[in-house]
């Protein structure tokens, strides 16, 4: 019996729980992005309760059939709590299945981050503060990246992956980092205080555009670097990321257009829309929210690519601990 086969049940459980965590977190992020799009963060004025009820005992019909803002905000809280519980289960499974120190560290980080994120969400409501909202929006993708990393590292086949070229590692790691920085810049734009002066906003937009160019360049670099690296999975992920980045650029332009229209005065007058924009339209909200969610997905995919190219290679290599190998030897070969 090979080593990897012997580890399948335990590693598989951790991987399955991590995948559930990634899936539920994705939905949570969609709700979070919608909360910001619809300015619904203050739809529930108290925390940790909801309008005086225990959060879990708030009448579901009042939530589900209630106002849209309440549906988003309370739904975001319920999903947050669910993600917290899954994170705890994942940490327990990771510990019980003797995963590598890196995976256990990431599981611990996930628990810590989800707790911090919950408290930040509460503070955002209780203080009604945009600064806290910005930090909350930056921690969300960080948690998502950690969850994706755990799911990738606990995948059975990841232990057989070898490192690719250092250029591939650098481009993939840089892409993940640049994508996260983009999400941070995006959070500053989305949670912008109306008192901010135009010069600051201009600077933020310029930074976000430069970041978009950097992410696009790194995505192209990742495709080129993984082209002949002998890791088909890395190649596939890099191509998928490039496609996502292309869609993301289009959504970025769309997010501007649905908010402020075509930049008339900069483009020929004949390009002007003959009808005014429609504020708070479903189409507009979908484009803007889609831009945020796709950014998170690119981050998640970049984390997978980073691991596939060899970032955290040491963590993958030591997925099976020596003591575990000894026990296995005694059990299987004695």
């Amino acid at each position, binding site marked *: 019996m090979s080593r990897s086969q012997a580890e399948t049940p335990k590693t598989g459980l951790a991987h399955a729980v991590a995948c559930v965590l990634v899936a539920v977190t994705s939905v949570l992020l969609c709700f979070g992005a919608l909360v910001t799009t619809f*300015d619904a963060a203050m739809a529930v004025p108290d925390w940790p309760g909801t309008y005086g009820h225990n959060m879990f005992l708030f009448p579901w019909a009042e939530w589900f059939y209630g106002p849209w*803002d309440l549906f988003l905000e309370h739904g975001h809280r319920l999903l947050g709590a669910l993600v917290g519980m899954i994170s705890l289960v994942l940490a327990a499974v990771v510990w019980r299945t003797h995963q590598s120190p890196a995976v256990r560290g990431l599981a611990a980080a996930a628990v810590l981050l989800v707790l911090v994120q919950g408290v930040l969400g509460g503070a955002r409501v209780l203080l009604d503060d945009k600064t806290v909202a910005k930090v909350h929006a930056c921690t969300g993708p960080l948690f998502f990246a950690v969850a994706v990393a755990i799911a990738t590292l606990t995948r059975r086949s990841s232990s057989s992956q070898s490192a690719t070229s250092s250029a591939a590692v650098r481009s993939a790691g840089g892409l993940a980092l640049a994508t996260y920085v983009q999400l941070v810049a995006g959070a500053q734009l989305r949670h912008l205080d*109306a008192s901010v002066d135009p010069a600051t906003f201009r600077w933020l937009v310029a930074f976000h555009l430069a970041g978009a160019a950097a992410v696009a360049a790194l995505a192209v670099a990742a495709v080129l670097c993984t082209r002949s690296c002998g890791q088909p999975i890395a190649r596939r992920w890099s191509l998928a990321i490039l496609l996502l980045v292309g869609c993301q650029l289009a959504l970025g332009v769309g997010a501007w257009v649905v908010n402020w229209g075509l930049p008339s005065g900069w483009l020929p*007058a004949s390009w002007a829309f003959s009808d*005014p924009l429609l504020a708070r339209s479903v189409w507009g909200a979908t484009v803007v929210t889609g831009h945020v969610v796709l950014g998170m997905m690119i981050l998640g995919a970049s984390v997978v690519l980073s691991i596939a190219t060899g970032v955290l290679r040491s963590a993958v290599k030591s997925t099976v601990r020596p003591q575990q190998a000894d026990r296995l030897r005694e059990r299987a070969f004695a």
Partner: protein
Amino acid sequence: MNRFSRIAFLLAAGCLLSAGCGKTPNASYRLNMVEATKQRLTTEQEQQVATVLLAMFGTPDDPVALPEFGLDEAKLRLASGPVRSDIVGRKNGLYREHCAHCHGVTGDGMGPTAAFLNPYPRDYRPGVFKFKSTERADKPTHADLLRILRNGIAGTSMPSFALLSEPQIDALAEYVKYLSIRGETELSLMRAFFELDDDAQGKLPETREFLVDETAGPIAEKWKSAAAAQIPVPDMPADIDLVASIAKGRELFYGDKANCVKCHGVTGLGDGQANDYDDWNKAIVEINKEIQGGLAKAGETSTSGMSSEDAAEHRKQVAWLGKFSHVVDGDALTPRTIPPRNLRLGVYRGGRRPLDLYYRIHAGINGAPMPAAKGTVPPEDIWHIVNYIRSLPYEFDGELGADRPMVARDRF
């Protein structure tokens, strides 16, 4: 520290840095520093204006409206303050949610996004509004504001808020009036220092007579009387021959009386005189000219032959010019010219109804170079111009090199 730890550290640092330097401060109204500097107000005088405004109008989170203003405080409360909603979905803070990012918390047209928008968002403080059904110098009616909010402004970044409920749109219109009255009162107070007697010792009288009856009251009164100032519009003759009307309108368009061709160009593409500014930008252009002229003159003037008093005055003037230049850089957007409208696109900012075009031609556009035809062109002839303008997007025009009638969008 290995690579993984370094990346984690960088991410955490970035996350913390993104938080900025502390809690977001409560929203506050910005003082009109361009006017304050122009009027050479001292710090104490600026503080007095700010205090008076606070007493009369409250804060963005807690607005106050004196009974003389004729504003509905319940509507103001719905529109003001931070964004929040209750268990039945009633939303407060509508202005902060929908308007402040472009128009600014103060309504000064200096919201965060303003620099990117073309045209710039409206600065409510001078109390000048473009698209309305009243005479050029009058305030818009409440219905005019509602129409703009509901329909948006085509060809600009001002969206339609048709998806908001009627009470929400109504509350926003009321809040725009409140900000405009507040801004105009601020301007009046700052200008009033110039007319003070020596006895006043550089301080405005803090009496109800001066502050309400003489300053804010007359401004609010103009808003209250706007509905009565609506332009009377004669009906378009029912038996009008449209072809003949368009031909007559064309004649007027190119004629000396209406002289639309001067700015909108012989082709109607808006390629006539295009180097003018609207009132908001013109004010900044003139201030910049004053500063540049003053600095150039100061540079040529030598203080060597001056008396000590004159030299001190000269230095004071140079310091003021420097301060003014700095204030204008920070508190005003770079002026832009206003191109005349391209009438062949079929995009009409003030509304596409014939009635809207009638108002624009009759009263002109307040704050813009578009003059009023009232008094020059009889009302029935204005209808002919309206008909001609409405035909322009579909008019065959050999001068453009077309050999067949084309809709505007095919031309470009």
